[in-house]
């Protein structure tokens, strides 16, 4: 049995995993700016545990506190209350230069009076590494971000995408335990952004460093992340992997912020084992999934994505019937805008060619809801 040995090692690692502290653990973290009646609460008792080697994204609109949270982890701001621990070690009071985390800034913040190589080697230089080691690591980083040819350039002679890579290499060079990325792709054009998204993701897998990524771009978050925390007004509303966040939103805000979604008012009739029966405003009964452990009652909202709705064929039973108001074609798909008897609007997405010439405004269309893709929102 040659596998026995490997098996034991894996088992050991498994048990070690269970006891290994989170890469970053944030407890009851609050940050208020200003004092008295003008105080602004940027973060309100936030709690998260970010695992080792995880690509973790903080997602939310501007002003939701995601950048503040990142700056608190980096040490540029001190929290009003709460603690931050790095692999079990409390770093709440440490100044930024004593935290083994590095940041990729939104503006890159490259040092304009230094070359690309000097920028990348700066962190190691500050750590007192030998010239030889700085040289070796800088070479490796330059190769990693494919900038070998530009080592001696000044940073203002680089394109935006190249500057972005230098910023990334500079932050990775000291091999931080956690890499913080503050909307690093925001300044790039769409095409470059798309390719950098994939590159960042593979870079994270390659280096095994925990990434904490801040963005307001939901698509970016879904593409890259292992887990996403959706934030609003200084609080974390929901944490989950991209599928959970997209398919099973628990809050109206999360549902609305990520992708397109239909939200209908409803009243709960019965809720049991993660499934609720609700009544829409016109009396239609619909089944919908609920958040784990939640037992909603009374007035709620249900959410269903346009692509998860199906038009009922001839003779099929429909959940609800609406009047076609508008048809919007956008290449890969078309959106059918229906007016429901409840007075609410419902958008149904159908493949692009499917809708062509088939429907005319004013037509009555049956739509069926799939209970497993319909969610009750808190």
């Amino acid at each position, binding site marked *: 049995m040659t596998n026995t040995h490997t098996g034991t090692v894996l088992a050991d690692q498994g048990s070690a995993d269970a006891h290994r502290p989170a890469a970053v653990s944030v407890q009851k973290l609050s940050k208020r700016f200003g004092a008295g009646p003008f105080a602004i609460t940027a973060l309100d008792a936030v709690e998260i545990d970010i695992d080792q080697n995880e690509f973790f994204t903080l997602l939310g609109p501007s002003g939701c506190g995601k950048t503040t949270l990142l700056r608190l982890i980096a040490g540029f701001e001190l929290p009003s209350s709460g603690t931050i621990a790095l692999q079990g070690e409390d770093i709440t009071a440490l100044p930024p*230069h004593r935290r083994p985390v590095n940041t990729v800034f939104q503006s890159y*913040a490259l040092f304009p009076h230094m070359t690309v190589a000097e920028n990348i080697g700066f962190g190691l230089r*500050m750590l007192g590494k030998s010239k030889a080691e700085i040289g070796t690591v800088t070479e490796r980083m330059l190769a990693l971000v494919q900038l070998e040819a530009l080592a001696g350039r000044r940073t203002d002679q680089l394109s935006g995408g190249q500057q972005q890579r230098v910023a990334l290499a500079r932050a990775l060079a000291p091999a931080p335990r956690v890499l913080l990325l503050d909307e690093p792709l925001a300044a790039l054009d769409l095409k470059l952004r798309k390719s950098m998204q994939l590159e960042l993701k593979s870079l994270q897998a390659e280096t095994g460093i925990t990434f904490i990524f801040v963005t307001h771009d939901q698509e970016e978050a879904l593409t890259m992340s292992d887990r996403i925390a959706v934030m609003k007004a200084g609080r974390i509303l929901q944490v989950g992997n991209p599928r959970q966040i997209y398919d099973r939103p628990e809050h109206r805000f999360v549902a609305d912020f990520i992708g397109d979604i239909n939200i209908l008012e409803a009243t709960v009739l019965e809720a049991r084992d993660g499934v609720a029966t609700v009544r829409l405003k016109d009396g239609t009964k619909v089944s919908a999934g609920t958040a784990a452990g939640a037992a909603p009652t009374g007035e709620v909202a249900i959410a269903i994505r346009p692509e998860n709705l199906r038009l009922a064929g001839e003779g099929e039973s429909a959940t609800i019937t609406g009047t076609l108001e508008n048809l919007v074609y956008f290449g890969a798909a078309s959106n059918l805008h229906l007016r429901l008897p409840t007075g609410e609007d419902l958008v149904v997405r159908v493949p692009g060619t499917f809708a062509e010439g088939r429907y005319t405004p004013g037509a009555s269309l049956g739509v069926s809801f799939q209970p497993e893709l319909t969610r009750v929102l808190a």
Partner: protein
Amino acid sequence: MTEGSPAPVLRAFRRRDLRAMPGFKAMAWLCIIALYMPLAVLIIFSFNDNRSVVRWTEFSLDWYAKALANDGIRNAALVSVKIALFATVISTVVATMAALATTRTRGFRGQGLVYGIINQPLMIPEIVTAIATLSLFALIKRLTGVTGVGYLMMAHAAFCIPFAYMPIRARLETMTLTMEQAAADLYATPLKAFALITLPLLGPGIVSGAMLAFVVSLDDVIITLLVAGPGETTLPIYILGAIRRGITPEINAVSTILVAVSVLLVVLLFFVQRRMQR
């Protein structure tokens, strides 16, 4: 085309091209003449082979030779440079600290007032500052009995501060705090972040401030006139005294040298800034 082309004024206005406006050239020349004609006259007559500063006869370098051989002028120039160097160093260091304190900290109440206080010498008539400084120094001298060139140096250092402060602060305001944060993030202690990031980036501002302070000190008449003790004659004071005895092309020659030094400094400043701001 049949409508006819609009008047040139309108065309220039539409193109938003000021240079095409009628009278632009005349106005530009007027400004240049007003600024440089006096200097041109001064410089031309410094090469005049004649005692007159209004009647040209022949080209000559005699007055330069005379000026350079004149002990009075040489001593005055030496005193001027000594005082200016001292004032430059002190005022630039103080101004750099003041600029850091007023821009590298979180905004505080009364920040505008602080700017005003630092810029005091720019707002109060120089003659008032001169008399005030004189009174203070007279008091100190009476109380301590200490005399010497130190008083004049201190006076110069003080009124040079705002001139050094302005370009340094202007430079700091264009530098975001993110640079220092990036340095701290990359394990630089506050001292190292300052020495390796803030100071080099601030360089052009400090050099501008220092040069401005140097020129202002070199140029000062009023405060120097009142504060300077015996034997502390600076170049401007010497020139002023010489003129009272009758203006000669020798004064023109000295003044021309001063102009040349100033121009040289400005050109140097330009190149230093361009090099460092790349």
